[in-house]
């Protein structure tokens, strides 16, 4: 796991981002729909359209447009939004952090409950618990997120109002000083426990909704992977050495069974970050998923390009992290320089 390996991977990242920027740039301009026309809507004179196109730089050649874009990006400027005039980087940042908070919470839930259910199912194979958890895992995988979210709101916010149904924090508590952007953590840093409790309560329903599918997948993968490992010789040896069952399961079996689970978790984190749009919509969560969709609908080129670049960067970094964790879990896969 040398510095050389990591820096090579980071170089790949740069190449990938360059490729992604070209592809996204071209694809956006290939889909029909003129941003100026979409902005002006039903009632626009040709002069107004032409003026707006010039202002937006859409009348220049594709190459020129890309060149301007690329030189801006290299200077850390992702451009300004066509719709709001505001710099895209700032617009993306506030939403990215909201999505990150939601995805991390969902990931924690999915990992903790998914792994726990998987392990217990495996060590108590064919028990009632095994059947129950695998039944719920099957239900979870096939659950329409939209329906689940609305049902949770209906029962836990409307009928028996115990949890909030929208936003990230209760009204009037918004003024938590920002250090990470993750409100739950910011509130702890600021020592404001009312805000912490409120932020946590706001997280429960959306993160539970978002976690359902990955939780079910993780549970199933953990179970099958554990079942494979648990009958291996080294587990028998570990038991023969007189180790406690907990140590056998957690240190010897789970660690070895974890490789496929880590792969799935890594993939899921990427999917959660990009695919939270449904959950964000139902729970009015001000995240990036909704922003990408709105921007795409409005052909807000700079905004979409910025989002995709950031998604691509994150996916690459997550993949790199997964590869590094592999090495940590199983020294045999460590990369040689």
């Amino acid at each position: 796991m040398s510095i050389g390996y990591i820096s090579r991977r980071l170089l790949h990242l740069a190449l990938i981002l360059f490729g992604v920027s070209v592809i996204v740039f071209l694809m956006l301009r290939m889909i029909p729909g003129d941003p100026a026309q979409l902005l002006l809507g039903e009632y626009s004179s040709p002069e107004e359209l032409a003026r707006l196109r010039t202002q937006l730089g859409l009348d220049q050649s594709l190459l020129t447009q890309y060149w301007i874009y690329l030189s801006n990006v290299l200077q850390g400027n992702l451009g300004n939004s066509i719709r709001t005039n505001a710099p895209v980087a700032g617009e993306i940042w506030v939403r990215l952090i909201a999505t990150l908070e939601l995805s991390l919470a969902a990931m924690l839930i999915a990992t903790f409950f998914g792994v726990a259910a998987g392990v217990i199912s495996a060590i108590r194979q064919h028990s009632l618990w095994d059947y129950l958890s695998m039944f719920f895992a099957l239900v979870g995988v096939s659950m329409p997120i939209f329906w689940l979210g609305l049902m949770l709101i209906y029962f836990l916010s409307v009928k028996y109002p115990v949890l909030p149904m929208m936003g990230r924090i209760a009204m009037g508590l918004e003024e938590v000083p920002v250090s990470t952007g993750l409100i739950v953590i910011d509130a702890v840093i600021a020592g404001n426990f009312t805000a912490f409790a409120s932020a946590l309560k706001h997280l429960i329903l959306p993160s539970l909704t978002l976690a359902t599918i990955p939780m079910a997948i993780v549970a199933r993968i953990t179970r099958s992977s554990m079942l494979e490992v648990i009958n291996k010789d080294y587990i028998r040896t570990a038991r023969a050495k007189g180790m406690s069952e907990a140590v056998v399961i957690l240190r010897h079996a789970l660690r070895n069974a974890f490789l496929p689970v880590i792969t799935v978790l890594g993939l899921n984190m990427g999917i959660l970050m990009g695919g939270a749009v449904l959950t964000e919509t139902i729970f009015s969560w001000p995240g990036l998923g909704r922003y990408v969709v709105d921007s795409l609908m409005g052909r807000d080129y700079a905004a979409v390009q910025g989002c995709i670049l950031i998604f691509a960067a994150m996916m690459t970094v997550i993949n790199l992290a997964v590869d590094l964790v592999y090495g940590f879990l199983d020294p045999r896969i460590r990369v040689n320089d």
Partner: protein
Amino acid sequence: MKKWLIALILVLFMWPFVAFSGEKPAAKGTLIWGRGGDSVNLDLAQATDGESIKAGIQILENLVIFNKDTMDVEPQLAESWTVSKNGLTWTFKLRKGIKFHDGEPFNAKAVYDSFARIIDKNHPLHGYGKWRYLSLSLKQVSKIDIIDDYTIALITKKPYAPLLNNLALWLCPILSPKAMEEYKDQIGQHPVGTGPFKFVKWVKDDQIILERNADYWGEKAHVNKLVLKSIPEPSSRLMALQSGAVDIADDLDPDSIKLVEKNPELSTIKRPSVNVGYLALNTEKPYLKDIRVRKALNHAIDKDTLIKAVFQGLAVPAKNPFAPSIWSYNDKIKPYDYNPAKAKKLLKEAGFDLKQELTLWAMPVSRVYMPDPVKTAELIQAYFSAIGVKAKIVRMDWGAYLKKTANGEHDMCMLGWLGGNADPDNFLYGLLSSDTAKTPGASNVSLWKNAEFTALCKKAQKTFKKTERTELYMKAQEIFHEEAPWIPLAHTTIVRCYNKKLKNVPLRPNGLNSFQMVVKD
């Protein structure tokens, strides 16, 4: 005598209550307003989307404004105005003693800067914005003169009566000159106006927080805070209203509205809007050139059923190009009745080739004036097929749709208009005159060119007496009806759903209101 004494005692006893009830209640509470999306730009001179306008008009004000219930123009920041004899100079007397939210004084200079930045390329603030819909705002204004601190004159290129309605539209707001200089192209993210609410904070895609302007010149807001929440999913919006998480929910679907009506804690107000949804018939296509064919198609559609089935009852059938809530609506016109037999007869007379397949362009997005365009198109297709006319539904991306229909590439296309400045000129001249029927970029997508109709519209633009303008527009609507370049479909009903804890919830026919009069118990 005794009666008098009792009456006197009663009056004396009641006096404190009467006097007390006459006092304005103190502001209290936070009004939370759930809506379908976030605003984009709160500098309304640059705004093109409804959500920006809804929020922006709480903060910014104009020289003149529409009445809160009707679309008649009333004074707002201007006290009064006059138009010169030649119809070219509009002089506005401004209210005195008004301050912007940043403490700057409101005066003629502020009006000058707010308007000149839009139309004058040499104005220092011009480069900080993308000025949209110029034709709906100040396109006709060629010069702005500051006469004194509280008098300003707008000089137009030609006599242009609809200017007053344009000035009442969101596109002509007055902002603090200091703030416009300070925030430059970001003024839309930090609006500073004179309105009943001040801008406090904007959490993108989540909420916009406004607070009561305690120094407001008019009726001060009755709530301390106004929060505009973005709740994109309509079912979530309904549940937010039911659970009390929001006080007002906009843009609910008809099924949700029915649930709100049944709920004893919730209430609705409904009002016919100023919009129109229509099917434009391309009069330049050989098969649709014949007026008899266009009339036949008008007779083919049962609008009552269409409204029941697709609009779920939340609309009224249209017969004219604009809604009855707009002045000069010609109610004497008899609508084309649903009569398939007559339609067939007319087609036969015109020698229409029934083998010919016409394209029927269906909008890919739903709009207030066309909530379910695909279903509408399918129903229309079925009605046409019942008189033997084959129609093929065409769908494409919204941007391409607008561009191609403005090029006249369709046989028939669905479109609509939200109502703009609620001046008949906006509909008749804007959507139906020969001047706007030029491709590419026609806003008259039926490409109908009628010299008499256009002349009437142009004459009305130069006429400043409302009664005279009314006569001209009445006549124009008759010509429109006779020539049938459109099938006017419906004017939708707008609905606002709210919690009964609120009093005085307003609803203008264009759905745009400032909320200072709303009281929350």
